[in-house]
């Protein structure tokens, strides 16, 4: 599981894949943003309209087949952007896989690798949650935080491929860290959805609110859809993250001599979990269902981000093997 031999070539491929993923995702963000900014208010799909005397190309009756309607420019740009998003996800996966192959260990042994994995799971979760074409505009709001995280990870937290310290040499490393980062990645999507829900149901989305921002807000999917995305991603991530914490506790019992010791990371995970539990309770409490619940979800999002950065990089605890400084 641990060896001091590092394949430099594979490690370099991993770094190249990371840089490529960043570039591709930035271009994807730009294209999707162009679509979001240029699309008009939703109209009935034009391809459904058939001119008088014409027939569809698959029609059995004879008639004039109108040339296929070209999709509007904005939509084509958006679809290109989405294709690039999928390419970016594949490149990020390549970056992670090459890291693992270069070091012959699970590729999540330091903060750089952990954040890459978290972003990857966030992107995959979004690909599932936003698979419908009408949700495409939401990708902008997923890519923004993901790119910020990736920039921080690549610029400040980068660690060269290396074996991990003895405390991390356990079969719990692949289990605990991957489960936690899947949970964190999905919570990221939930948090963004709740933030957008709050914006969408604010005064900004009134049909006659003036300004470019209000126009932009009105192009988002309706508040109910956003709320549903937030809820469904949260109920997926909540048990996953809970299992991650429990696996961490089992590991801690073998590595540090106790299953729970209020280490800063454990404490903030506890806080985040309690906040998300409050969110689920709020969802089934009269008077808390919509806005207050969404706010609680946003607080949980903040706790997750805090857990990701502050606890590993600023405080000193048992989880401080960031591989930095």
């Amino acid at each position, binding site marked *: 599981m*641990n060896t001091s031999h590092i394949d430099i070539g594979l490690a370099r491929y991993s770094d190249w894949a990371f840089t490529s993923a960043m570039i591709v995702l930035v271009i994807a963000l730009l294209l999707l943003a162009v679509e979001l900014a240029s699309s008009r208010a939703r109209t009935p799909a034009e391809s459904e309209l058939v001119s008088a005397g014409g027939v569809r190309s698959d029609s059995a009756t004879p008639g004039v087949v109108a040339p296929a309607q070209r999709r509007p420019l904005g939509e084509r740009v958006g679809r290109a952007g989405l294709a690039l998003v999928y390419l970016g996800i594949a490149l990020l996966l390549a970056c992670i896989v090459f890291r693992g192959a270069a070091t012959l260990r699970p590729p999540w042994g330091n903060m750089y690798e952990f954040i890459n994995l978290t972003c990857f799971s966030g992107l995959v979760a979004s690909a599932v949650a936003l698979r419908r074409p009408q949700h495409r505009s939401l990708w902008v709001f997923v890519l923004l935080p993901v790119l910020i995280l990736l920039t921080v990870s690549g610029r400040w937290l980068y660690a060269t491929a*290396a074996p991990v*310290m*003895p405390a991390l*040499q356990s079969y719990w490393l692949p289990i605990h860290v991957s489960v936690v980062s899947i949970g964190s990645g999905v919570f990221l999507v939930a948090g963004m959805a709740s933030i957008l829900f709050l914006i969408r149901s604010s005064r900004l989305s009134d049909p006659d609110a003036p300004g470019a921002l209000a126009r932009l807000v009105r192009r988002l999917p309706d508040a109910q859809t956003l709320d549903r995305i937030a809820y*469904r991603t949260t109920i997926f991530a909540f048990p996953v993250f809970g299992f991650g914490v429990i696996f961490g506790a089992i590991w801690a019992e073998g590595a540090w001599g*106790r*299953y729970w010791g209020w280490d*800063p990371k454990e404490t903030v995970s506890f806080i985040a979990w309690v906040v998300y539990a409050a969110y689920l309770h709020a969802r*089934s409490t009269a008077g808390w269902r919509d806005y207050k619940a969404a706010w609680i979800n946003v607080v949980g999002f903040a706790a997750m981000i805090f857990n990701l950065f502050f606890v590993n990089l600023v405080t000193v605890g048992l989880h401080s093997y960031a591989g930095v400084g």
Partner: protein
Amino acid sequence: MTTTSEPRADAKTPKKGRFRALSRLLATLMARGRNTWRALTSMGTALVLLVLLALAAIPGALLPQRSLNAAKVDEYLALHPVLGPLLERMQAFEVFSSFWFTAIYVLLCVSLIGCLTPRTFEHLRNLRATPVAAPRNLSRLPKHAQTQLAGDAEELGAQMAAELRGWRRITRSADSVVEVSAEKGYLREFGNLIFHFALLGLLAAVALGRMFGYEGNVMVIADGGPGFCSASPAAFDSFRAGATVDGTKLHPLCVRVNDFTADYLVSGLATSFTAHIDYQAGEDLRTNQWRPYLLEVNHPLRVGGVRAYLQGHGYAPTFTVTFPDGQTRTQTVQFRPDNPLTLLSSGAIRIDPPAGVYPDASERRKHQIGIQGLFAPTEQLDDRLLSSAFPAMNDPAVAIDVYRGDTGLDTGRPQSLFTLDSRLIDQGRLTKVARSNLKAGEQIRLDDGTKVRFDGAVPFVNIQVSHDPAEIWVLVFAMTMMAGLVVSLVVRRRRIWIRITRAEQAGTVNVELGGLARTDNSGWGDEFERLSTKLFGKET
């Protein structure tokens, strides 16, 4: 929640005087108590308490905690002379045992029990209850479909009820109208209850573990020496135990450490720590049989009800002092690793002169040798300032101050293992006589002919012995909790009604289907469509 209030206690039987006043007071108190109980066990209160619990834990992550790092707390107190003591009084450095944190989680537990008990009974009642009768107007329900089918109402009703496998259902018929009520998703509440009961069980198991468990740390020199036996708290350098542990019934485990090996990359990053140990537990203690074990990080020794962990390591330098008459004393003492990356360590050694060197006890006490300084496993000198370049022992060196006088060994006052008692130095009872940098094998000569030689160093390991009888139950409850949680999130509660009435055309019936998602609406639309297609045998 019922809103009927009980009749006033004094409504029926008029009483007089003091007795009446008392009974009224009692009634008021009872009403007040009942209201408080209702408020405490309401969902809103539970929510507020959950949020409070999260808020209350925040200082535990931001401020240094005494249970984790007492030195950090002292440092914080020294840095913040105004804020520090205030926080201290608020128990902000012991958040998780503070009165306010305890208050919140006790209230939460009470609220939880108060909420769970009625819900459990209600769930049990629901399990036995039949699905409710159909509402008069099914088209008012959130989901509704209708069609006309050929056939007999009774027959169709039975057929449709049979289609609803997995649903709890009941068919009611009256005046040629057949109604099927069906409900599913009872497991959701079951999972929900399991989750919360397991949570209570988990808390109880944690509390039991805290009460009956203990853990102790001891630094053992890794040279095959005597090691330690964990039969008494005195065997440990530090010992933390639950309230019921008085130190008399510790699980006996004897450990001696034969060697310790650490592997490092050139960068100084450690890649492995291993210690070969021998241990005795249980019957072996009587027969004096030692068993070998390879103790590693992540691979604790689990034996005889306790667990032994390799928790840390450092170096114990050896010094030999040759007194003026030629007698020697050699001592190896653990130094505290100050820098975890390079293992630059600091510590102190106190050596009593052998009998016969000095004429009497008081003279002998005045000639004890105290050595205090730094140890570097791989020497790096900046001018004459010693630091360590690498954590492995490639080129060991020390930078020491040698003191002569009374080291305070027989004063009866406890001293730090790692520093000489500064009060003795301030009082002039212990005076510095030399300062030097030594490599392994080098020695210095003091003014009275005493020689101090640095012989080298051996590694020591920090072993933690822990005992927690309820640990396995914590795991069991945690897993039960998660199972309940997953069930309660995956299962959805649905309720449908079918009403079959005779149509105007003979031999056909009108079939109406109404549906209600009692929890988690998402996906219910598609689900209802699939259901109606299946029941009607065609698209509606």
